[in-house]
């Protein structure tokens, strides 16, 4: 791009780059294969690690014999529990050991590990390790696990309940007594797998003096150091995390035990060690979604006013705890910021089972709850004889409302997204002129952009923008791009705020040795929290550039501005210098120190009170409405998605390409969950640990997706923006379930909505 004249630039819109269609910053290197992921890296002298995993869902370990494995030529280290620091740890509950101590709690639990000169040797060595187990009675579903006398998985939790979340507002009993309509049902959101294309991977290197470097495809590079340090009995400062390109995460790539095994093997051998999950390992011992069953009741007035919600939830934690407790509580009450419901009660239990530990997946509990609530609302709309879209608009939260849990909704575009989506879909028309076996269904969602309290010590973000002598800028921050396009938006925000050209801004890969402590990618927080910090850093850099220019040209700062890399004088907008000239002037005057802008953003959010649960966890709240249009084959039960409409309140459109990409991707993941994805587990063993049998949608399994946006310009968002990652997936399952009901009159309440379930339901209705 040529350097545009100041005047031309200033006469354009308020923004130079914000709002433009910008391809991903690193798309070029990804398109040529040059982009390096952890799986691609190879360090000199690198060894390959492999993990011996438990074949039993619940068993005592009697003894482990590693002698033959150790003797195999090429094997450099074989470790078991006794070679580990033997410290209990975990991101939320201290129920992890790096390697199993005396018992295993799920198929796939880490029992021993080896490092060898190549993968084949490591694999062979693993097969030479003999472990004697004594099987213990096991329990696989939360329902069974809470029965008296059920096998106990963690003796510290004798009833198997890991966490029990309760919250109550208003007078629920009275509301139900006085309601015109009480409706209730049971729903089940099954266990699904994130299926990121790059499986879990790690490279670890020790410098022999107790300092570790980990190359991780991590969503939370800074934060993992905290629990990893505890597990290894060292200080966080002794762990450096470098995050190269990441092949998708969707919630799964947070703390992962194999990283620590890798670290121990590297420490033991003094050589770099790489561990990459096979796809099957990843299926069997990844971090899939927390499965949840709900018993949900709603109370309404005749006119559709929501009076009360009563939710009971039971969720599966698997054999050890990752983020289940937080996901459970989210399912219990995050959704209460969607509609005005004065009387609320939730009671959720998270339960140990002898299955793979469950964790975060786009939507974080809210996606599960949304399926239940938005399905039941549809059922209520039918009972009440109120149009489903109307019913939702009637109860929606508006700008400036505060939820019963204290969440302050500065802006809500919910009603607008309903309007926009129904318009786009031709909702009224299609509702009126029904075609047989075709149906249309609507569902809404809300979500956060950040989650105060997820990491106790702080929430917020910070960024450093360094402007070099040629006007090139490097943005250093600790948040984690995992493929979603966050770095692109950061570069846009930095350029906009500092007055730089977009192409002059590079975003550095996260390296905890250099960058600030970033909490990372979860809770759809990147754009809002990280973005505000980036803007602040950009503004700081601009302030310094202006001050420098002011002294260079002897013009007061107020009379100067910077746009697209050019410093000009106001009001006549004459070009004075390029940013490069000003930045180099600064640098050479400062003994070579580059001009650096620092940005800090601390949101005015409130950690929920541990007892009352009153708080305000996110600076802004996002809303969306989805509409699915389906056709059901009543003989095969197969559902075809014809069209899909998604309207999102994004606050402000920063980069339409990125937003559309997030929504389209989220919708397709949601369609997979709605219609086909399911980790089929029998006696704790995943039966379909391959992409052939764990079906994620292919290009031919989806309909046309129509995406649109509502701008609410939230005063607390970066240039008004809100988050997008998770809300893109949340409402899909319910929209599809509602559309199927509209099409053929059967209501499927358990995910996924398979052809077999539809056929069975159709037969059932025929018989009635």
């Amino acid at each position, binding site marked *: 791009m040529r350097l545009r004249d100041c005047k031309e630039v200033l006469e354009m819109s308020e923004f130079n780059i914000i709002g433009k269609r910008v391809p991903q910053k690193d798309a070029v290197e990804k398109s040529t294969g040059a982009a390096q992921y952890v799986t691609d890296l190879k360090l000199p002298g690198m060894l390959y690690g492999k993990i011996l995993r438990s074949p039993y869902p619940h068993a005592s370990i009697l003894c482990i014999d590693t002698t033959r494995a150790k003797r195999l030529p090429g094997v450099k280290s074989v470790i078991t529990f006794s070679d580990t620091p033997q410290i209990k740890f975990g991101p939320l509950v201290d129920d992890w050991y790096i390697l199993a101590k005396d018992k295993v709690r799920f198929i796939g639990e880490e029992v021993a590990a080896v490092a060898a000169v190549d993968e*084949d040797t490591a694999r*062979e060595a693993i097969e030479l390790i003999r472990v004697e187990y004594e099987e213990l009675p096991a329990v696989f579903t939360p329902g069974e696990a809470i029965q008296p006398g059920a096998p106990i998985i963690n003796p510290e939790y004798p009833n198997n309940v890991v966490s029990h979340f309760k919250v109550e507002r208003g007078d629920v009993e009275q509301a139900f007594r006085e309601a015109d309509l009480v409706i209730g049902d049971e729903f089940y959101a099954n266990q699904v797998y994130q299926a990121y294309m790059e499986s879990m991977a790690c490279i670890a290197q020790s410098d022999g003096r107790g300092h570790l470097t980990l190359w991780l495809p991590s969503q939370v590079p800074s934060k993992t150091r905290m629990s990893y340090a505890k597990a290894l009995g060292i200080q966080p400062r002794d762990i450096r995390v470098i995050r190269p390109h990441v092949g998708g995460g969707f919630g799964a790539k947070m703390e992962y035990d194999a990283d620590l095994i890798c670290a121990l093997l590297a420490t033991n051998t003094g050589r770099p060690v790489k561990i990459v999950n096979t796809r099957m390992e990843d299926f069997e011992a990844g971090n899939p979604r927390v499965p949840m069953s709900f018993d949900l009741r709603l109370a309404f007035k005749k006119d559709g006013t929501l009076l009360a919600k009563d939710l009971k939830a039971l969720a599966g934690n698997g054999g050890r705890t990752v983020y289940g407790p937080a996901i459970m509580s989210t399912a219990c009450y995050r959704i209460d910021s969607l509609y005005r419901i004065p009387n609320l009660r939730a009671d959720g239990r998270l339960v140990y089972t002898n299955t793979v530990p469950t964790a975060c997946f786009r939507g974080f509990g809210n996606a599960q709850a949304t399926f239940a609530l938005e399905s039941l609302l549809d059922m209520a709309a039918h009972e009440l004889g109120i149009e489903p879209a109307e019913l939702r608009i009637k109860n929606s939260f508006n700008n400036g409302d505060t939820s019963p849990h204290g969440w302050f909704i500065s802006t809500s575009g919910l009603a607008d997204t309903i309007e926009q989506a129904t318009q786009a879909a031709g909702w009224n028309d299609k509702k009126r002129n029904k075609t047989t076996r075709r149906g249309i269904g609507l569902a809404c969602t809300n979500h956060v952009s950040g989650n105060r309290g997820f990491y106790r010590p702080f929430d917020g973000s910070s960024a450093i923008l360094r402007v070099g002598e040629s006007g090139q800028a490097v943005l250093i921050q600790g948040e984690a791009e995992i493929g979603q396009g966050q770095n692109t938006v950061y570069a846009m925000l930095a350029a906009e705020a500092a007055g730089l050209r977009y192409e002059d801004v590079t975003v550095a890969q996260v390296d905890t040795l250099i960058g600030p402590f970033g909490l990372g990618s979860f809770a759809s927080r990147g754009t809002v929290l990280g973005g505000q910090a980036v803007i602040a850093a950009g503004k700081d850099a601009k302030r310094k550039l202006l001050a420098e220019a002011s002294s260079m040209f002897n013009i007061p700062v107020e009379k100067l501005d910077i746009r697209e890399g050019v410093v000009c004088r106001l009001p006549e907008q004459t070009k004075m210098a390029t940013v490069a000239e000003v930045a180099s002037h600064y640098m050479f005057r400062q003994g070579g120190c580059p001009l650096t802008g620092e940005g800090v953003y601390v949101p005015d959010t409130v950690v929920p009170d541990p007892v009352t649960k009153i708080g305000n966890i996110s600076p802004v709240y996002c809303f969306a409405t989805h509409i699915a249009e389906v056709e059901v084959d009543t*003989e*095969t039960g*197969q559902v075809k998605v014809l069209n899909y409409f998604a309207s999102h309140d994004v606050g402000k459109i920063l980069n339409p390409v990125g937003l559309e990409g997030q929504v389209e991707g989220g919708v397709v993941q949601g369609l997979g969950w709605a219609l*086909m994805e399911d980790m*089929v587990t029998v006696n704790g063993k995943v*039966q*379909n640990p391959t992409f*052939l*049998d764990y*079906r994620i*949608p*292919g*290009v*031919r*399994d989806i309909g046309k997706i129509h995406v649109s946006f509502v701008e609410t310009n939230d005063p607390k968002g970066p240039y008004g923006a809100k988050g997008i990652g998770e809300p893109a997936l949340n409402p899909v399952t319910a929209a599809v379930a509602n559309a199927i009901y509209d099409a053929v009159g059967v209501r499927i309440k358990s995910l996924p909505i*398979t*052809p*077999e379930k539809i*056929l069975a339901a159709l037969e059932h209705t025929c018989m009635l």
Partner: protein
Amino acid sequence: MKDIAYLRPQILQEASDYLLAYPDAKLLAGGTDLILSLERKKVTPTHIVDLSGISHLNQVVFENGILRLGAMVTIQELHEIPIVRDKFPDIAVAAGHLGCWQVRNRATLGGNLANAAPSAEMAPPLIAHNAKVKLVSSQGERMLPLEEFFTGPGRTIMHQGEVLAEIIVPEPREGLEMRYSRHALRRSMDISVVNVVVHLQLKGEIVIDVKIVLGAVAPTPIRSKRAEEILVGKKLDNILISNAAQAASLECQPITDVRATAGYRRKMVQVLMERALYSFFKGGAALES
């Protein structure tokens, strides 16, 4: 595993010799089944005998009304070759449904049959066409109907030392119509839950010839002789179609696995049969849309 030996014979006899000399040797064609089994240690051969060096195995010849397909012809070739598309459309269509483009470019016809999965895509249409297989060993060769080739899941009638060399398919009679249909849970890249092939010839409204082969609903691909009996010599109408479809769904012996329950498979046999039969049906009721 590291000590596996690789052999690449130039002629069939040599391949057979290797198989006889090394009882734990495995033939390698496109590898799309075999490499997976090696990876998962379902098989642990001492030797891999690669058939790709035997040049004539990938020939396709159509002469005197006979189509000869070398065992190493790829599935994508079967999908694309004009003569197959033209005269054996159900074979071409079936080939187009197998896996995906990348897999079809490697997967061979011989491998698909020899692997003997109950869901093997290519078996039902070829059985319906009365295809024969030529098995060659250093002791000689034999020909037998493909219908007799499969003996169970992953099992065939081949002896140690035999190589499936060729598949011989007679040109269908004038007037015979062919339908291939499959039901899978994804629209592509999925193993069939049910395969149905119907070959049928009508004279006026009367069925004068019919052959029905079902895949993925029994230990091997099977003929539905009951359904054939019901149909042949009768007027094709709603009731006949429904009876034949029901007979087929009763005759198969599906299992429940991670892809579908036995009950669902049975139902799908009925649905696909009805749909296939209605598609031949010219008079009376309209085609089920």
